[in-house]
């Protein structure tokens, strides 16, 4: 067999291996990333989506955050303007980032499961800090 052909076989093994690892990796570790509306609609149509680990991207409802230091628990509500549901996070409060406040429109990504009772049980809460950068330039300040 020519060396070129041997190399081609080796290359195919690697390329195939990478492709396999990628597809398997996505199948086993991929998580749905939805808005509250998408999640509620999908779960209503397909109950399989209840108690399924996934991520939800939404805004924190202003003034809804209740921290319970003693029980290491945070209750709040998220919304995307149409759908809204309560979220409960039980776990280390040190894991909650500094930027997670309900002072202004905070974008949040919660990871966890939507229970059949309609409450989202979060295992992690990530607040995005985009607001203080470019995106939330006070429009009124510009060339008023």
């Amino acid at each position: 067999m020519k060396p070129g052909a041997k190399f081609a076989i080796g290359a195919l093994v690697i390329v195939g291996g990478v492709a396999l690892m990628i597809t398997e990796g996505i199948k086993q570790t991929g998580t749905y990333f939805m808005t509250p509306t998408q999640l509620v609609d999908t779960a209503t149509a397909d109950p399989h989506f209840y108690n399924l680990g996934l991520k939800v991207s939404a805004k924190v409802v202003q003034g809804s955050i209740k921290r319970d230091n003693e029980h290491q628990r945070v209750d709040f509500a998220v919304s995307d303007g149409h759908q809204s549901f309560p979220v409960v996070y039980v776990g280390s409060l040190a894991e909650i980032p500094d930027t997670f406040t309900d002072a202004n429109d905070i974008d949040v990504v919660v990871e966890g499961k939507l229970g059949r009772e309609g409450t989202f049980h979060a295992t992690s809460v990530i607040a995005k800090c985009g607001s203080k950068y470019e995106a939330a330039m006070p429009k009124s300040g510009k060339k008023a």
Partner: protein
Amino acid sequence: MTLLGTFALWAALLLACWSAAIALLGPWQRRPSLAVAVTRGAYAVCGALLVATAALWQGIFAHDFNIEYVWAYTSRNLPTYYLVAGFWAGQKGSLLFWAVILSIFGALAQALTSSRHKHLLPYVAGVTNLVVAFFVAVMLFGHANPFERMAFTPADGRGLNPQLQNPGMVMHPPMLYLGYISITIPFAFAIAALMARRLDTGWIIAMRKWALASWLFLSIGITLGMWWAYVELGWGGVWAWDPVENAPLLAWLTLTAFLHSVMIQEKRGMLKRWNVSLMIGTFLLSIFGTFITRSGVIASVHSFTQSDIGYFFLALLFVSAVLSFTLLYTRWPMLEAEVQLESLLSRESAFLFNNLALVGIAFSVLWGTLFPILSEAVKGTKITVGPPFFDRVNVPLGLFLLLLTGIGPLIAWRKASAANLRRQFIVPLLSGAVSAAALVAVGLRDFYPLVALSLAGFVLGTVAQEFYRGIRARMSLHGEHMLLALAHLIARNRRRYGGYIVHVGIVIYFVAFTGLAFKVKHETVLLPGAVDTIRSPFGHTYTLTHLGVSQYTRLNRHVSVATLEVRLDGERLGTITSEKRQYVDSFDQPTFEPATEIGLRSTLREDLYVVYAGSPDGTEAARYTIMINPLVTWFWIGCGVLTIGGLITMWPGGPQLRTPRRRVVAQAGYAVPLAGVTE
């Protein structure tokens, strides 16, 4: 000054467009004076942008808050060095930073390139000026002019985001930018070679050091980003596979592949098409990375900037991809390989597999990063993948790459004989086997860490053997002392031995990543005087006593600081503090959400990493997250080793350049027997 700045931008735009048009549309070949004019055009663009840069810095240092950019990113109470960093803290300033640095690189490429490659230079100036023109155009037409004024003058600026107020963050963005930006120069040489139809190894020799420089900048920039994430974000890790982190990694991976595969082209005249494609791909990935970080199209934890400017970059990405690959297609027949692969057991083939692994990693990272968008486009629902996905795919590939790092330097070019394999592999294999045995003996049983550290032993054995043989040869040949022989060995073969030192740096990164697999994490609430213990993976016990929480005020922040007394195996080491900071403006109004400042005690063995997560309402008790992170210091040491190796490789002068004639003869000598072999 803002008027001058805007004027300088327009001047730069017009000059860049003019010079690019002449250089790329070609009238200069018939009129040599125009070729000179194109070169001067590169200098003139650089001059105009330097004026604009000076104007912006002047505005920042003069606290001219009427300029919107100055208001948005700096304030009166910001320390001076962060004022310097304010230049590139925001979108608009970083665009100017990008344009001015690229124009400086473009001018340097004109000034520093040897006259042997003169025929490429006007094209190089054309490509760089075209890219500069793009950035200036984005500023002027994309509502991103940093000199824009507001209708009123605020009394103070908003200040710099506290997470950016960190020495690492002063250096991290410019380093990454330097890496991204300098990629344009080797890309410009590749395009120039295609346009001039001069597709011998000339263009590779002309741009090799540029490619190395961008690789080095990217490496340092990525590592600084890791350091920043480690000390500033308070999660105790260095890498989270966030899109913003993946973006520079993509270009780094393909550039690494390129640096290896050009050696095959230089030595054997193979892989010409692949090399040009890799260079084009690397440039496109650098633009893609900029697009990701600036458009907010992919959700990222630290997506800094979200704006329409992304579409400009998408357009640039699309247009340059189409133009470059069309050009490559028209020159395809000229890029025929001179020889074929002779054996699977050869250095060529080791390098080819190295390229496959690197491109494979790059592809999987790109795929994972884009998957949310792809799945939404195809299936209508977003599916994200996180660190588990990237680890699963890239840990095996990375270890395969580490294996090749040990094999590549040992195996002969063209075809390795059984004698060559025996002579070369015995010591490194023994070194790997001894490492494995020692690790098992001390009780390491985890599969991947065991493989990683054994391979590290194998690669270090390879490098040590290479150095040992080189030194021994010099000692017996020239009668030199060992250290002198080492110095001469490196100085006379900078590329080869500098490269080995880089390999050692990479091995150290692998070892440090392996250490992170053994991190220990622990959360606790402590009243003043309360004691807690944490056991490190190396078997030591830290005893921590909470001493209390105190509060004080600095120039631009209010600080709550929690203090722990640290004892290691009973011996008192001192105290460690961690802070919660509330940044304020000069009217004492809070400017940002509270920020956390971690406490860190680093040793070569492990880091004690303490995060003060606040106090339960009104008490002096403190909530702590405490981590032991093994071997993290080795990331920074690895970066230092890699930088030294890279600098040796790039150091100007050296025997190869001083005797160009012998080089040409040697190349001819290669060509003759090889031509005979392939027939």
